[in-house]
């Protein structure tokens, strides 16, 4: 659905169902250079399971207009304001990659308290090398292509996909190309500059789930495992794939998330 939020056209994926603030809401936060299409196999799945789902395209991403947020904190404030605007209270936030950092900051400021936080391919820090930062200004398309290649495991290389006929690389590149040109650089800088992750992780008091990837080259497994140790009682799973868990292992990821959500009830 499209809303006007903070003066800009803003798209919220709802998984093909209407948003219902009386239900438990799953708020999916996309990663750097991504948008709601990266959660295509989660949004519909959970919307049809009876949850209210929102997958916002952050400003300048996907089908949203506006200027990209310039820090993780700014992203978190934007999401916080959106949840308030939509009067959503029973919220479980699910972040992927950069979305995990945003979730950490959102947890600090969301007044109604998040019901749970789910980290997909997450860490408390996501340093970005200078070459990629520079390339994201000079040639965002090439930078996107490199991220798509690094980000996928062997299924990406070999065009293996449980979604018949779909190519991880071809689809991934096009998803990233849908964003406004400056969005990727702002995202990558936001990740690179973020340094409050350790304290933010230690302060999590709500149920937490982390799903990490064995062959993750963007937020390496080693970093993810250190991160989950910072969180009290974080349920952790490791899947055999690359960074793009939502598209590489949708069935397994959905199953893990679903089981976790059922325990919350």
């Amino acid at each position: 659905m499209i809303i006007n939020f903070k003066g800009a056209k803003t798209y919220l994926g709802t998984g093909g169902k209407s948003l219902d603030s009386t239900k438990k809401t799953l708020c999916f936060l996309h990663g750097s250079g991504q948008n709601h299409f990266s959660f295509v196999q989660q949004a519909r799945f959970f919307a049809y399971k009876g949850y209210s789902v929102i997958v916002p395209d952050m400003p300048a991403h996907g089908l949203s207009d506006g200027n990209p947020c310039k820090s993780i904190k700014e992203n978190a404030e934007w999401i916080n304001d959106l949840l308030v605007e939509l009067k959503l209270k029973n919220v479980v936030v699910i972040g992927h990659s950069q979305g995990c950092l945003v979730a950490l900051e959102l947890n600090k400021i969301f007044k109604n308290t998040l019901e749970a936080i789910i980290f997909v391919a997450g860490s408390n820090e996501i340093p970005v090398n200078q070459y990629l930062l520079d390339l994201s200004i000079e040639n965002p398309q090439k930078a996107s292509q490199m991220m798509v290649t690094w980000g996928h495991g062997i299924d990406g290389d070999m065009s293996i996909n449980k979604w018949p006929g779909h190519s991880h690389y071809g689809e991934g590149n096009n998803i990233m190309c849908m964003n406004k040109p400056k969005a990727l650089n702002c995202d990558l800088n936001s990740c690179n500059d973020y340094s409050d992750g350790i304290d933010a992780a230690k302060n999590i008091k709500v149920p937490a789930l982390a799903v990490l990837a064995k062959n993750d080259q963007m937020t390496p497994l080693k970093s993810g495992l250190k991160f989950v140790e910072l969180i009290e009682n974080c349920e952790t799973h490791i899947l055999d794939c690359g960074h793009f868990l939502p598209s590489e292992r949708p069935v397994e990821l959905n199953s893990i998330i679903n089981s976790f959500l059922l325990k919350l009830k």
Partner: protein
Amino acid sequence: MSENYKFDTLSLHAGHIPDKETGSRAVPIYQTTSYVFNSTEEAASLYNMEVGGHLYTRISNPTVAALEQRLAALEGGASALACSSGMAAMHLVISAICSSGDHIVASSKMYGANINLLQHTMPRFGVKTDFVNPNDPEAIKRAIKPNTKLVFGEVIGNPGLDIMDVPEIAKICNSKNIPLVLDATFNTPYLMQPFKHGANIIVHSLTKWLGGHGIAIGGAIVNGGNFDWGDKDKFPTISGAHFALGGISFWEEFGPSALIAKIRAEGMYNFGPSLSPTNAFHLMQGIETLPLRMKKHIENTHSIIEFLVNHEMVEWVKHPDLETHPDHEVAKRILPKGSGSIVAFGIKGGREAGKAFIESVQLASHLANVGDAKTLLIHPGSTTHSHLSSEAMKEGGLTDDMIRLSVGLEDINDITKDFERAFKAVKKLNK
């Protein structure tokens, strides 16, 4: 470790890794109509397109999906869908994008069945087409109307071998927010990948060079994922609420793969032109050697062109790699590896001479196909394009004396010897 595998590697591997259960190195043929659901929830999630998977082979099948994913990888597309033939692919694309009252701009120099579909069949359903010279981008621009929903052409025209200036035409389509749909059968992704030149949708007859062995009919649509379907007034059945799945917007839900999602949910579901898993397997066997075959096809084509150009019995030879071809410069630019292995030529003596030639060859096969590993030929005026009027024939660049040759992979000396024998028979006739 992630790798960006190259074309030759993808031709062999894309779409399949040995499965952990059986270790099968070859892509298994899943000769099944349907798939057992583990639960009612799983069944519902497949029907609702919540996640990927297979529910019925008319919609998708694991063997066919391996082929689709290989094609998507080779073309650099977002997604692909294989179907029963190239013509089925074309109809699926048109029916997914157009509704009654819509308009198409298409090349006037195309395969007869493509012209037939657009000129005679689709108007019965309210979709009209204006045909324009594919070598004239400005004419294409002028033909676009407010209700035009796609521009269609063949990268290498069949059988006239006109080359579309894809980058120029793509620019026009892009400026008008109209998808450029290309039949890329004659070039295959080995010779040219249209998405790199700005095209949006590719259709293939897999029966030809991709399959390459003349044993299986098949078609495919490859979706570039690079077209914005967001204009609800222009593309209401893709970006607006669709009757399927409770008013789904394919664009908002599936973005880069909206078109393929719609075709699978509507076209495959309602029309049912599915590809058999066994044919998908055969076509994949062909694709495994596509790079090797295409190199040899081009090598033999260049040799046969030289032979024909210098032959006293040949009136004219047409191939885009010849400097005399009107689209030679475009061909050099967009098809640097070669412009395919179809050669058109005219024999001195006209229609009767052409007939005699075809009936005198022994090695080359007289049949209605192209792109086989074996050398094939046909007289389009009396076969593939016989239903066209003289005017339409002329418009399509066809002449009575024209022979369409699909150069195969035989030893080049054996092909030329075969042709020499046939020319001698024609010479006797001419006397």
